[in-house]
Structures are given as C-alpha cells and as structure tokens.
C-alpha cells in the first residue's frame, strides 16, 4: 500500500515539475510566498500574500519584467508555513520542487530558522521578515531582510518618546518564546543606551488574563511599560488592565504594527492615554495610493495589517532586481542586482541598505518609517522618521 502511495507522490511531483518547467511554457516568474496563514499569527501571512499578489498583478499589467525581450508572466504560489520550522522547511522544499527560486517570507523566527538550510541547499533568494537576532548574516548571502528589526528603529523611537514623556525606567513585557525574547532583549539595550534603566518580564504564550502579570508590573513601579512584541490582542488587554490597575505612565510597544487592534481591544485612545509605537511605514496620501490601487487591481480591500505596505515595497524591490538582472533562474545574479539597486519606492520613498553593524551584512531594507503617539488620550499625527541607519 505504501509503495503505491510513494509512486503516487513521485508521479504527482513529476507532473508538477513538468508543468513548472519554464522551457515548456512561455516565460514565467513564480514568486513563492512562505507565510503563516493559520493560527494566531495568520494576519502577518495574509498581509504578505496580499502584497505579493498585488505586486505580481502590477508587474503583469505594466509588463515590467522582460527576459530577452519577452514579457514574463508573474504568478504567486503561497504555502502556509504554520509558524513552525518544519512548516517553513516543508513549504520551501515544495517550492524548490516546483522550481521556484524567489521566496517572500517567512515572518516568524522559528520559520526563518527552518527555511534557511533549505534555501541554501537550493540557491533560493529569500526576502524574509523576522525580528530574530540572527535573521540575516554573512553565512546566508541570499537571505535578505524586508525591513529592519528593533536594532534599526528602537533607538530613534526611544529618543522621541523620552523627549515627550521623560521616563527614567521602563519594564518590557513580552511572551516567553523567541518571538518575544529576541525583540524585548534588543529593545532593552536600546533603552539602556538612552540612559533609561530597563528590565524584562516574560509571560507564557497563550495567557489570556494578564491581571496577575499586571500586579507584578505595578509592584515593580516602572515609569513606563513597553509591550515589545506582545501580539496586539495581548497588548490591548495589558493596556486596559494596566490602566484599570491605576498605571498612569506612558506605555510603548516597540515590536510591530497593530495600533488599531490594540486600541480596539483596550477600549480606545482614552484608555491608551500616553502611548507610543513603531509604525513600519509612514502612511501618507502617497502610500494610501497603494491601497486604492489594490482595490482597482484586485477588486478587494487590502489586508488590514500595515505590514502589507512594507511587503509591497520589498516585493517591488525583488521584482525590480529580477528585471535588472534579466534572469528568472540565477538567484546569485539577482542578489547582486538587488544589492546594487538604489533603495526607493514610488509610494514609500527613499531608503537605504543597512545591517552591517548588527548582522555583519548590509542586506536589510530600510525605508522611512513612522512613530505613532497618543498623548493624553489624543491621537497625534504620526511622526515621519527618515530611514533608520542601524548605527
């Protein structure tokens, strides 16, 4: 029985391999999306998939990729990586078998850990997004980072926050897995560099009622609390319960986008009171243009999560690099082209490559970003900050 099954697998795989063979079809560029599409972090993957499909549609409309004068059709294959190392590795292997060379994602730290050996083995170019401390590095020359982690933006944001709120101590709260510890510990260093004493506190992933943790935080009497990479739902409850417990100081969230959801769960700006957060993209009319364009091209609303915009700019960079390199197979050439391209986006603006200081390799895209503030219960206009230098 199992032998039959094995031969079935072989034949199915053989079938897809034939279909994916570029020599038999017209020029085709397949972009692989490896992102978490199920479970608690599903919104990250959904934003990524939306961005990839949009940029593909955009490229097809403008016929922006031509190989030997022939316009190339861009398609997107997305596979759920389930937020595990195994899931991402399996997805990457699946893509390798389909001859897909360009991977967008994954997003979570365990996923990125799982995908890297596969990508190296199969010479895949990976445009990842993880705040892990070892997200990119010299040993993975084909792995890029679509935007900086806290090592890039935490410093500048803390400067603004200190100016506004003048805190002297902060307590960082995050879940106890890699998605929490790798961010909170980097944030902590950034706070300390700004002469703010910082301590870390971790809660068990899956906690639903934070009242005991809040009591512990209140006992520590910090000037400010930073929710780091706590998921927006968790962050929202913590803000609400902190305020109920009588915490008056500013609350930050240097971990990722999610202001709307946090405000919704917490109960609005009055509850947030004094709040500051990292906004991966400074959203002005120009950036909003992507959302409108998405509607006309895709006949649907864009994915709600703001990482969508960041993924659009990163995917556009990859597509541009492929067009410049003039190949849909040779990832080394495309990587070279990508490194040499000026970092710019028609909607998002001018940026730069960074990463040398923190990761030892300059393969991190850095675009202008935003710092959000709620002061005394009033939402402030987002501050635009020039692309982080990572220094």
């Amino acid at each position: 029985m199992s032998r039959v099954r094995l031969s079935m697998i072989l034949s199915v795989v053989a079938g897809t391999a034939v279909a994916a063979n570029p020599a038999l079809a017209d020029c085709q560029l397949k972009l692989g999306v490896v992102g978490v599409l199920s479970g608690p972090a599903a919104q990250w993957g959904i934003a990524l998939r939306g961005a990839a499909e949009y940029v593909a549609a955009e490229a097809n409309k403008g016929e922006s990729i031509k190989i030997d004068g022939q316009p190339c059709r861009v398609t997107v294959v997305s596979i759920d990586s389930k937020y595990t190392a195994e899931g991402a590795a399996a997805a990457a292997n699946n893509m390798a078998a389909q001859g897909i060379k360009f991977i967008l994602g994954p997003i979570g730290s365990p996923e990125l850990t799982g995908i890297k050996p596969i990508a190296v083995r199969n010479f895949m170019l990976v445009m990842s997004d993880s705040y892990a401390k070892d997200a990119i590095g010299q040993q993975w020359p084909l792995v890029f980072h679509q935007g900086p982690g806290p090592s890039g933006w935490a410093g500048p944001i803390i400067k603004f926050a200190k100016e506004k709120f003048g805190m002297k101590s902060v307590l960082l709260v995050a879940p106890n897995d890699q998605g929490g510890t790798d961010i909170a510990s980097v944030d902590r260093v950034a706070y300390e560099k700004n002469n703010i004493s910082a301590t870390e506190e971790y809660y068990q992933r899956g906690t639903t009622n934070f009242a005991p943790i809040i009591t512990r935080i209140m006992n520590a009497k910090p000037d400010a609390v930073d929710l780091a990479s706590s998921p927006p739902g968790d962050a929202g409850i913590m803000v609400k319960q902190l305020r109920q417990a009588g915490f008056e100081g500013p609350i930050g969230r240097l971990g990722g986008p999610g202001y709307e959801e946090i405000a919704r769960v917490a109960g609005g700006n009055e509850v947030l009171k004094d709040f500051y957060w990292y906004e991966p993209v400074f959203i002005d009319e120009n950036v909003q243009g992507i959302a409108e364009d998405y509607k006309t091209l895709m006949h649907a609303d864009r994915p709600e999560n703001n990482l969508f915009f960041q993924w659009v700019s990163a995917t556009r960079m990859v597509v541009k690099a492929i067009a410049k390199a003039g190949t849909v197979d040779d990832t080394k050439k495309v990587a070279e082209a990508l490194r040499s391209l000026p970092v710019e986006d028609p909607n998002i603006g001018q940026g730069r490559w960074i990463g040398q200081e923190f990761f030892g390799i300059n393969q991190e895209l850095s675009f202008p970003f935003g710092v959000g503030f709620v002061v005394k219960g009033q939402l402030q206009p987002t501050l635009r900050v020039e692309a982080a230098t990572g220094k």
Partner: protein
Amino acid sequence: MARPRLDVLPSKSNAGETVGILVIAAAFIIPALTRSPMVYSVANQILIAVTAAFSVYIMMRMNLLTFAVPTFMAVGGYTAAIAGRSFGITDLIVLTLLAFAVPALFALPLGALVLRLRGVYFVLVTFVLTQITQLVLFETPSLTGGSNGLVGMPAPTLFGITLADNQAVLSVTTALALMGVIVTATVTRIFRQHFAAIEENEVLAQSLGLVVWHYKALGFVIAAGVSGLAGFALVNMLLTAHPSSFAPLSSVNYIAYTIIGGKSSILGPLVGGCVLVWASDLLALQGEYSQGLFGFLIMVVVLLAKDGIVGAGAYWLHRLRPNRAPAMPVPASASFGPGDRT
C-alpha cells in the same frame, strides 16, 4: 465499553511487522530514484511522523493513550544537538544510541510516577508533560538555548563520511525510522501476550500473577526511546533544535496518525503517517483553510473507517475472499448494536 478487539490479521500477524520493516527500508532507494527536493521533504516528514507514531502505537498495545511524544522527542533531539555542539560528537551510531538511550532513561523515573495513573488520568498527565516540556526549554537557556533553540550543530558522520546533503539527510532519517520500526516490532512481538492481557483487563492480569508494572514500564521506556529517535531525525533534518518543533499540540498529530491508520496493526501508524502528512502538505496550499480541511478529513476517515484505514482494508480483504468468510472478524459497526444502548 469493552468492545471485542478487532484482530485484523489473526493468522499472519507476523506479516504486518515484516511488511512495515520492508516498506521503511525501501525508502533507502529514494535517493537513487529522484533528486526532487519535494519527494525528499515529504519522505523525511513521513518517516519522522511514522517513527513518532510508533511510540503511540506501543503505548496503545497496553490501552494507554499518550500525549507525551513531543516531550521524549525533545529529549532525544536536544541530546543529539547538545552532543554535537558542545561535545563534538558527530558519529551517527553514537548519536543514535544517545538519542534512544537518554529519553529511555529519562522515562524510567517518570514512568514510576505516571504509570500508576489509569485511563484518562494518564492521558491528561501526559498532556501536562508536553506543556511542562515547553516551559522547561524556555527556562533553561544555558543548556537548551531557551526560546531560540540550538542552531549550528555539525552534520553527523559515518565512518568518516559527512552526511550533510539532501540524500544523506534522507538516508539518516530512513535509518532512524528503520531502527524505530524494528524496535517497535520486536517489543510488541515478544511481549504481545503480556501487553494484550494488560489491554484486556489490567486487574485480572495482575491477579493472575502478571507483574503488570514491569511490562508497562518497559513499554513506556521503549516508546520514549523510539520518540527520541524521531526527535533526532527531526533535529537532523532542520539542523536546529527549536522549542516550536516540540509544541504540545503536535502530539495530537502523532495520535491522529496512529488512530486514522489503525491502532491494531503496526501498519496503522505507517499508513496513517503517510496519508495525513501527505494530505497536510497538500492542504497547506489552501492557506487559511488548511487546518479546517485537515479536521474534516480526520472526521470523515474516523466515521467511515472506524478501525482505521488498515482495519478497514483488512476487513474488505477478508470479505473479498469468500472461503474465509466464516473467520471474518466482526465488522466494527456491528460490534455494538442498538441493543447495547436501549
């Protein structure tokens, strides 16, 4: 609740074990047939899943449902990772023995505690163990790398040859799975009657002079060792020992492989692992619908084939051979009729 046990292949019960070993050994020829990373990936995943499911199968022989598979997989996997990283041990044979022996030794004192529990209490405690495992991994960063796990262990070697490429990784996984199936087959064969007696009625077995505790502990320890092999294979495939690979709810998958495949034959975990891993890989293409479709698949199989795929297959095989009809086992659906419940 005591249903007649459906012994699917009464006259040739050795056949299941032999076929199982042969099928897994057959995976050695995959590298000669194809270079497709997809085939390698699916084969690796299936072999690891099946090895882990064998450990559920061993416990099922004694009517014990265990969730603790990820716990022992973690012990085996982290043992191999630490041995490679901190002690420079790369010899495949040594690593394999460690990945089997350390979880087995670990299971001995643990078994003394939890095997006193019967039925559902045992089930629930093994579930708690998986939760504790995660927290212990998080809270011991100096040993296990904490939430970041351990990366960068050297590739294993065999007689001086480094086993690092796709083919070698699959061969290592195959060898570990083969060891898993041989251990499982041997143990369940040798102690077949003892286990069956415990499964039927533990109290009766005890009163008839069987030292039940010995056999339960033995089964538990062996099952832990087999899980450890699966954990080593997983860590070797990913080159990483990461807490997320041993998540509490992953235990549900290994149980599903065993039950969906059929818990009364060693072929059950094998078939269940093949079908469900393959299905799960296909379904991952469906994005956010994947989990739901997987759930639907489980429900359909359980409702249509109550004794698993292998059980149903054996039943139909018997039906198709008219001369054996009198010896036909009781079909599952007839084992309790309306008479039982009115």
